[in-house]
């Protein structure tokens, strides 16, 4: 005791003191630290050497994979397929243009104080889908037509997630308004719609979209597989979106509604000019989180036979020419998804901290 009061700096500052406090503060913490340290050291070594040191990075085919580690040659050889699917090689610039525009529109949203980032965001929600509508399928403006059966890989994943979120936002907003409506029948219809879609798994929705939608439509009207999947995803997602937005609507104080009424605004003006701008801003983190889960859920389309990035990898790892490349393929896909999802979740966490005014009820 006296010793520590005599010379405090050595024991309270510096790495030794930090380790004493954070790693060896009691006998069980010491035991835990040693145990975890041992497991980490023994497992990280082989993992790192599999990932990097023993791995083969350069080469042209299966014969280049001679090391004991991962065969990254497989991923680099098939990268084109993983990103573009069966999209024709000479037309891939169109997809690249969309990738660049997507990055231009949305990456600045992560950077505080980027000039014109609001307008870039608005462009990403309005102009970008319009350009994509003409650019990706082609068939107009002298562009060669590329049917949706040839789309695949990361590009398809992004298309599914992007259109899913874009279409579900307005539908979800309407559903949320309906659920908060004073009219009992409208409210009842919205509640039933939202709860039914939220209760069933996405797989059953996709099955339904691919098996039952053709039955529902009149003779002669039909969509291709991708559109059917998109209809299913959008309806399913809009139910989730509605619940997120409803949270925002409920967070707006009553005074705001009453003030808008007092100004003599009609329902749509009240919602459009006073309530929704505040409510939507409040729930941006929630919307981003919904987007993250939708982004991960797009992998399910491989079950109904679309080649998203996981589907593309899954179909190539069974190629007998390459032996046991399943882990490499999965690590690649996991990395792709992780980068997107982690980035977005960080963004929504920051936003949440910024929007948290500290007087939540």
């Amino acid at each position: 005791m006296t010793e520590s009061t005599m010379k405090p700096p050595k024991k309270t500052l510096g790495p030794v003191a930090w380790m004493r406090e954070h790693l060896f503060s009691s006998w069980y913490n010491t035991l835990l630290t040693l145990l975890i340290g041992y497991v980490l050291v023994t497992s990280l070594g082989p993992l790192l050497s599999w990932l990097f040191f023993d791995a083969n990075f350069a080469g042209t085919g299966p014969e280049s994979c001679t090391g004991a580690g991962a065969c990254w040659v497989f991923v680099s050889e098939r990268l084109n397929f993983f990103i573009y699917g069966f999209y024709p090689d000479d037309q891939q610039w169109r997809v690249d243009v969309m990738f660049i525009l997507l990055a231009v529109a949305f990456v600045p949203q992560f950077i505080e104080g980027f000039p014109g980032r609001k307008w870039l965001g608005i462009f990403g929600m309005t102009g970008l889908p319009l350009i994509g509508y003409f650019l990706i399928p082609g068939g107009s403006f002298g562009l060669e037509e590329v049917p949706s059966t040839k789309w695949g890989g990361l590009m398809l994943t992004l298309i599914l997630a992007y259109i899913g979120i874009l279409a579900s936002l307005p539908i979800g907003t309407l559903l949320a308004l309906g659920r908060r409506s004073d009219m009992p029948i409208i409210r009842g219809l919205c509640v039933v719609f939202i709860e039914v879609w939220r209760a069933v798994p996405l797989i059953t929705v996709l099955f339904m979209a691919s098996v039952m939608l053709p039955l529902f439509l009149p003779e002669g009207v039909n969509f291709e597989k991708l559109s059917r999947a998109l209809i299913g995803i959008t309806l399913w997602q809009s139910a989730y979106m509605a619940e997120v937005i409803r949270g925002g609507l409920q967070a707006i104080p009553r005074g705001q509604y009453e003030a808008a009424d007092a100004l003599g605004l009609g329902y749509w003006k009240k919602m459009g000019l006073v309530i929704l701008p505040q409510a939507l801003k409040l729930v941006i983190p929630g919307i981003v989180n919904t987007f993250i889960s939708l982004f991960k859920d797009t992998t399910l389309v491989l079950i109904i036979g679309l080649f998203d990035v996981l589907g593309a990898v899954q179909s190539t790892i069974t190629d007998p020419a390459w032996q046991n490349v399943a882990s490499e393929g999965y690590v690649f896909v996991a990395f792709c998804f992780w980068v997107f999802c982690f980035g977005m979740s960080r963004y929504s966490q920051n936003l949440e901290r910024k929007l948290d005014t500290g007087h939540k009820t």
Partner: protein
Amino acid sequence: MKTETITQANGSKPAGPKPWYDPRVRSIFFQIVAIALVFWGGWTLVDNTLSNMESRGISTGFGFLEESAGFGIIMSLVPYDATMSYGRTFLVGLTNTLLVSAMGVVAATILGFIIGVARLSSNWLVAKLALVYVEVIRNIPLLLQIFFWYFAVLAALPSPRQSVEVGGSAFLNNRGLYVPDPVTQDGFGLVWGAIAVAIAAVIGLRIWAKKRQLATGKIFPTFKVGVSILVLLPVLAYFVAGSPLEWDVPALKGFNFRGGITIIPELAALWLALSLYTASFIAEIVRSGILSVSKGQTEASKALGLPNSLTLRLVVIPQAMRVIIPPLTSQYLNLVKNSSLATAIGYPDLVAVFMGTTLNQTGQAVEVVAITMAVYLTISLLISLFMNIYNRAVAIKER
């Protein structure tokens, strides 16, 4: 304006708004339009569906549930073979879904609580490890994780002849995990009876101890005594009845193991992936729940002289549970819904068996999809109901 005031002053009725400006009239009008639209839409769908099914020669009705299925299922909890009906396949799928969901909920809850607490550990290494786990696992699609466990890890296990042996009675190979099956003999009823008596005794003990504590302030070690009753009484009954239990140990016959309980790799992969994935979300919920209890509460409890364990049990956990329960419910619901990903690796759950094979064989899409969706709707509503009851029990009691 002026004329209006005058007429009012004259004693006649005030002129109300024109009917199309009256909010009540408007609301009734819009609701009638909405109902009309829904009915028209529904009728069109039904009409289209009926004419489409007629032109494709698909029969309607639920008669197919009685027909013989004629396909095998690799795993079933209820007795099943290919001669049984489609109704039976539904039951097999449903029980398999419920099995993997229940296993997943239990494992994910335990793991999630451990990791959530670990994230708040004072040990830096433990906290960081938990953080890395959460951030890695929850940002990778579940389907990918299922594939990883099934195609990359479990498929790499040795063949049945080179099985990994655990204690000479459990075997692990790429066809599954084989463990001994307990077979109850005559006289095991006594053990069941003992278990029932022990549970009743513990409940009685609890009530008595609580009453005594309220009356005298003395604390009775209910937990320790209760656990000893629960363990000792059945064990005693087991030996009194003459050990009425035999083990059916799996043995290698030909190319595969026979006997015992088999956990097929499809179930193992799905269970692992579901539990690990959901645990990462539950961990975050638990962490935020514990953090939501303000420091003053812990300090107040310390000031009252409560030891650490009681502070945790009586002050922190009850308050944290209020925050934890609602999001935990939606995680359980997600887990049940996500168990339908089974169909991607061929675990025979409801979607794979009923919406997959049965639908393909009978072609009766409308009935099969409707039944499947109704099942998930029911499960979701039931879980919400139970969790709401529990939530009401732990919710803050206000005047």
